[in-house]
């Protein structure tokens, strides 16, 4: 899967490629919530 094809809203309010959420020097645990509450 190419995460650059998907975008996410980051905590600073900017929209960036999902790949930017990855740890470039290690592993990333990506947790998808059911909902925020």
């Amino acid at each position, binding site marked *: 899967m190419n995460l650059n094809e*998907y975008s996410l809203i980051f905590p600073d309010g900017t929209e960036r490629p999902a790949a930017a*959420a*990855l740890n470039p020097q290690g*592993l*990333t645990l*990506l*947790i998808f919530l*059911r909902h925020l509450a």
Partner: protein
Amino acid sequence: VQKSLAEFEAANVKVAVVSQSTAKSLATFHRWNAKPYPILGDPERRLYRAFGLERTRLVEFLKPRVLWRYLRLLFTGTKLRSVYGSEDVLQLGGDFLLAADGSILLGHASRESTDRPSVEQLLAAVRTHR
């Protein structure tokens, strides 16, 4: 995972959380709920679908196993809250361990609302792929 964050960080694992929230909902949430990991928004749920995360059905909440887990959460002090804005209460979550290039090392798409891997299972996967 939040309680075990130090263990993940010690293993050089970044924890990031994806929600179906809009930028506005996220801004409100961050104002009142500072978290030690990034919470990201995917309001159109394109990434949810890309990772194969589906919607559940209302009837699934009536299964004894699911009801029991919610009751246990309530008994242990967890407060059930209404969802933010336009979030879909039937959306299921999931947990994915990714390499630096985005390849999926461990994938767990929830089959029902309380179906999540344990922290021990996630840390075991980290040790396997470190």
